[in-house]
């Protein structure tokens, strides 16, 4: 236990992934779902950097991948928050269950 191995980080990543999924599954607030997505993305990043560190040091591919993920996450969050605000403008709530105007 005293030596931190790759698996330690991967398990942290797995926990982040599962909690993120759980958040996505159980929140009705649109921004709550977004928060879940951010957790999932972070779990991916932890895995990428851990692999980069332990399996391919000095190749930096994992770190750069993680960098791109961060960029994409920021972009995605900006757009998603914009969409949430528009949703709020249109249906006066961010409860995704009440956005049902396309439902048959």
């Amino acid at each position, binding site marked *: 236990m005293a030596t931190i191995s790759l698996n330690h980080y991967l398990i942290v990543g797995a926990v982040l992934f599962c909690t993120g*999924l759980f958040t996505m599954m159980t929140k009705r607030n649109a921004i709550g*779902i977004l928060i879940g997505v951010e957790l999932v993305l972070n779990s991916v990043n932890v895995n990428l950097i851990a692999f980069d560190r332990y399996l*391919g040091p000095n190749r930096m591919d994992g770190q750069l991948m993680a960098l791109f993920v961060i960029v994409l996450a920021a972009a995605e969050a900006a757009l998603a928050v914009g969409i949430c605000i528009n949703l709020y403008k249109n249906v006066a709530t961010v409860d*995704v*269950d009440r956005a049902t105007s396309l*439902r048959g």
Partner: protein
Amino acid sequence: MGEHFYEILLALGVLSPMVSFWILVFAGPKLGKPTAGWTAVVLGMGVPLALATWVLISWWWGEDSVSRAALTENAFRFHWADIGSVPITLGVKLDSLTVAMYFMVTFVAFWIFVFSIGYMSGHSDEVDGQSKYSRFFAYLSLFAFSMLGLVISSNLLFLFIFWELVGLCSYLLIGFYFDKAYASAAAIKAFVTNRVGDFGFLIGLMLVFYQLGTLDLDQAAAVFAEQAATGSGIFSSDFSLFGWSLATVMGVGLFCGAMGKSAQFPLHVWLPDAMAGPTPVSALIHAATMVAAGVYLVARVFRLMTPDALMFIALIGCLTLTLMALVAIVQVDIKKCLAYSTLSQLGYMIFGLGCGAWIAALFHLMTHAFFKAMLFLCSGQVIEGCHHEQDMRKMGGLRKKMPVTCWTFFVGVLAISGAGIAGTTIGLGGFFSKDEILAVAYVRAFEWDDAGKHEVHDGDAAHALGSTHPVTGVRLVSDPVQNAHGGFARAEARGAANAHGEDTQHVGHDDSARASIFGTIPALPKWMFYLALFTAYVTPFYMMRCWWMTFMGKPRDENVYRHAHESKLMYVPLAVLAVGTLLASYFLFRPLIADAATAATAAPLVLALDGHEHTAAIGAAHRFLTFGVGGAFIIAFLAAIAIYRRGLETPERIRRALAPLHLVLVHKYFFDEVYDVIWVKGCLLLAKVARFIDTWIVDSIFDMLAAATERIAAFSGLILDKHGVDGVVNGVARSSTDFAGFIRRWQTGRIRHYVIFATGVATVVFLWIWLAGASNADAAVVSAGM
């Protein structure tokens, strides 16, 4: 000087107009009327001009020919990207031609920018309540950026990009008065016509890319020469089109771009219409710089041309120069007249390149830029002064109202007519450049023995001399001119030619291999030379006609005459350009171009011509022609004055006498009409035919099918459907409704349910695979794949 000093300065000079463009785009309307213009003058052209002057001085007087060659050789190339295995490099093509062209463009453009401030200040140019003043200068700045970028591009890809950018600027500026229908139509015409040429250019570009494997000008030339020597690559193909090899097709394709941009014979129709733009634009873009870009392009890719391609180029140039010069005789619109003269002169340049008179053609390009820009500015002054009257028949006698314009115009007329004193070195720009083209054409037509043997011999001699007798740059380039006109000793001519001897030596090694491919360099058909010679007589005629109708004689329209005036700001550029016409071309440009010729024309087709071997044959031809053409302007001037001396009666009589010819010329050989019939009407006809087929054939088939279907449906609906099928269908429908009700409950429309389902399934699959794979020990081992 620093290692990449010149490149940095030239690149900065390109970027400066871009800065000006962005400033004017974003802050232009705020800057207001004169400020926006002066911004463009200072940032858009003043800075590049200063840099160009700096470069020119350091390049020409600060370096000797050896260090210049070294600088050209070691020019900086930025590795920008890769397309497949072909690296795309970005850099500055640094040689004397670039420097000369750059200086010419910035110098001419600077004064035109200054002129534009005066020209545009008088216009009420509001559209939708917004002034277009700053937009005009923004376009001009963008044009300056693109044009300078085109000049310095070392790579065909970037050259093409800037090529399209100048096309865009041309489009924007022709259609500057887009609220007028003719202007926007002219803009579209120019754009579309240019696309036709650019299509060919693209084909050429692709062939260069595919066959030569590089887009860098120098590398492409080297590869081309190597392939020509070994008969491999583009020369090994058994492709043939009109008897042309693939290499010729490539050259012709590249030339197609130049045809569009420089308005050569079949694609020339856009240039006269382009005069719909503001006059400074006509001066800058459609006379001095952009249209010359085609010539510049051909000069740049000269090393990729085969003899066949060059013959094609010469043919096109010859047709253009003759036909357009004839049209110019009958034009009554002052700008159109100048436009046709521009076309004719461009034809001269292209013809010169086709003959192999590389130096002479580019020299003509430079001199022409000066005097044609000045002529257009003069016409702008006249048009502006006469309240936008362009019809020369209503002018006349304006010399009293606008003397400076009159006499600067006259300097331009002299220059374009090639005025000079035969047998001496006294003369104006056209006197040297045009005659030199004719001289080379003469040699190609009359003294060419299809093998070019004498040239090799002279090249050897030059080489032998060159190793012992290096000649400084300044001396050598002024020599051929003096030699031709002043009758210098033959040995000196050799010494001059020798300055380019390194190159002869360079290509001399694979002489025999080259001979196998370029075994026969055809002589020029004699009629081409005769046409060019004939046009040399026509040119002064129509120019004199134009000048005389405008400025001399008696005023023909009282109203126009009364209002005519000169603008003070506007004749400063006129005066400067007039002085430039008198001086710069003679003292500067020819030596510069001759210096560049060494490397730039190292084509497999080593013509024993021009800069390489400006030898006895051409010298003699030149001397001989000097007397043949040198007096042309006097004869033509006298003819024009004789006809137009007494107003319009004499010309009217002649017109009636030659009515059919006049009709052809006035309708510009019916090109627009033919194009209209073939392309526009053809398209419409095709559409009509298609419509007929659609309405009468396709539709009727469908109608018949529909009718038949109706019948069958009536039968089946009444008998089969109601009794037999409905029962089955209803049963199926009922059961599917029940099933759908069951399925529908899972389709909740809620995101998290979907997440739950998807993740649940994924989890199950994951666990399944993992548990199944766990029994197999190897499957669980994941290699990182180092």
